[in-house]
């Protein structure tokens, strides 16, 4: 469960997040939809403790993510914007490293790693060094190490970027499974179809503000159009006019 209230983040010359509020519940997939530069990545980085905020509040399972970022981090598994791997380590070693950093016991770690390797269908690549992995294989390593500690909250920053159709599909299945397990899934995207197909609730973000928040139907109703793309454009425009 993630609750964001009036969050503000300023950089030297621009204000990237201007008072964002929304809630992402357990057992739901919540989508942050917005064009490039809308502030999605900044928002997520604040949630998983990489950036500090200049105002507002953010809670992860009731824990203040701004004050107790390490406790909040312990409840999050995330796929951040950059997904670099250590080319001299194997896939399994990547997963182990992150599990150990989260204080998992050896036994727990072994069982969980085996389960994830099985589930992500990565047996063949598990003990190979990641240098030369395809984008899909790298994504699997990243997902596995983000989920190693069975986090209640899963945050993903444009997770389908650069993936082919098959990998995208696998990722979607994975996210739906997480939802069925009762996890709180929050993902950002600028692809409308992806969000409308996958998400239970949608947060439309434009220029650092929430332009609309609700289910697909609610958003369509608010914009007065059936098509999400049209809804998005009209809501974003309206927001821009307000900002001006």
């Amino acid at each position, binding site marked *: 469960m993630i609750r964001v209230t009036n969050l503000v983040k300023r950089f030297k010359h621009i204000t990237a997040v201007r008072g964002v509020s929304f809630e992402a519940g357990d057992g739901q997939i919540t989508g942050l939809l917005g064009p490039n530069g809308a502030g999605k990545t900044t928002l997520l980085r604040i949630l998983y*403790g990489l950036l500090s905020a200049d105002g507002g509040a953010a809670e992860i399972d009731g824990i203040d993510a701004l004050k107790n970022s390490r406790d909040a*981090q312990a409840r999050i598994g*995330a796929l951040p914007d950059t997904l*670099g791997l250590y080319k*001299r380590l194997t896939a399994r070693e990547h997963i182990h490293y992150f599990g150990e*950093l989260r204080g998992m016991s050896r036994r*727990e770690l072994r069982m969980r790693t085996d389960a994830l390797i099985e589930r992500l269908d990565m047996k063949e690549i598990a003990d190979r060094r990641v240098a030369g992995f395809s984008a899909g294989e790298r994504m699997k390593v990243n997902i596995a190490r983000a989920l190693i500690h*069975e986090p209640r909250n899963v945050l993903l920053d444009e997770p389908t970027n650069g993936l082919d159709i098959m990998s995208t599909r696998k990722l979607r299945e994975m996210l739906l499974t997480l939802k069925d397990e009762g996890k709180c899934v929050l993902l950002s995207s600028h692809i409308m179809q992806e969000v409308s197909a996958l998400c239970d609730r949608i947060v439309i973000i434009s220029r650092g503000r929430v332009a609309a928040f609700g289910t697909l139907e609610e958003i369509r109703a608010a914009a007065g159009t059936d098509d999400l793309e049209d809804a998005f454009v009209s809501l974003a425009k309206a927001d821009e006019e307000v900002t001006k």
Partner: protein
Amino acid sequence: MTTRTPSAWHSIRVIFKKETKDGLRDWRAILTALLIPVMGPLMLIWMFSIFADVSAEPERITVPIAGSENAPGLISWLEENGTTVETAPENPMERVRESSIRMAVVIPDDYPEKIAEGKPATIEIITNSEDQSQLPAVSKMTRLISAYGAQIGALRLLARGINPEVAAPIAVREVDVSEGDAFIAGIQQVVPMFVVMVAFLCSMMLAVEMTAGERERGSIESLLLNPVSRRDMVLGKYSAAVAFSVAGLLLTSAGYIAVLGYLPVEELGVSITFDGKALMGLTATLLPLAFISSGLTILISTLSRSLKESQTVMSFMLIVLAMIPMFMENVGPTRTWMYAIPSFSQQRLIIDLLNGESPVFIHYLLSGSVSLLFSVAAVWITTRLFHREAFIFGR
């Protein structure tokens, strides 16, 4: 579900383990950590062989001898003592002058006659003193012929019932110290500088990969998602750099001690011994060196915007480090306060050890504590930098 935030000690250990494993698989880091430390000791062997060549008499020399039929006794004595006798060409003096042969020995025809009469017989050694390379051979020849003459003299005295020692009131032994001094001076210039370089190079390979490299690869963001404090991350990485630096220093010290132990340095009139005290002094010198080199390399590579930049800055730093002792030489003789200058102090302490000087506690204390202070400062600043958004996401 795991919602633990592990202890600092646990986190540091996990990061240390990962970074050393990663480093051990990096052939560039390994090549640096293994090859460079042994290069110095190998260079020492090479240096020694040059000095030893100059000073020692050749084992076997080949000498053209004219009139060898006049002195069969002398000839067989020479051949027994490492001389290969050749027949000399006509007019040996001219030949030596024009350098077609390098030296020659002439035994005159009246030699047997003179010997038989008990009169001094003259043997000429023809050399060209401009040809320095022949000096060892000439001195060997001179020594052998004189020794043969002395034997004949002793036999003559004995035949007259006189102890031959009476005729040799003074024994002269020549000890040339110049080669030994030159060798020692060479060691003192090369060894300390090299040891400092090893400390920095070995930690540098890892430091660059762990900070600038981690950011350039885009793996830093994922790493920082873990519930580990930035301080513990820096400490884990720092300790891995220290481990590599220590490994390099151990290897290079072992190499130097082995080489100095096995080389017959006494031949040059040099004595370098490593007793327990010296080993303790060496440890007290090198450990702080490993700490400060790791601290500085990690700080510099964290400050740099890219891998390339950090490598550039680092090579510049190495040159400065190598030049500090040269600069200090101009300042004057070494005083106590100079032991507070990191890198220079370590080089100075190594020189003191090589000289066999007994350790001065205050020197070690000053050198060690200042270096440790610098290391702590470097780690602290690096931790501050790890907190900065500009470091995580680049500038």
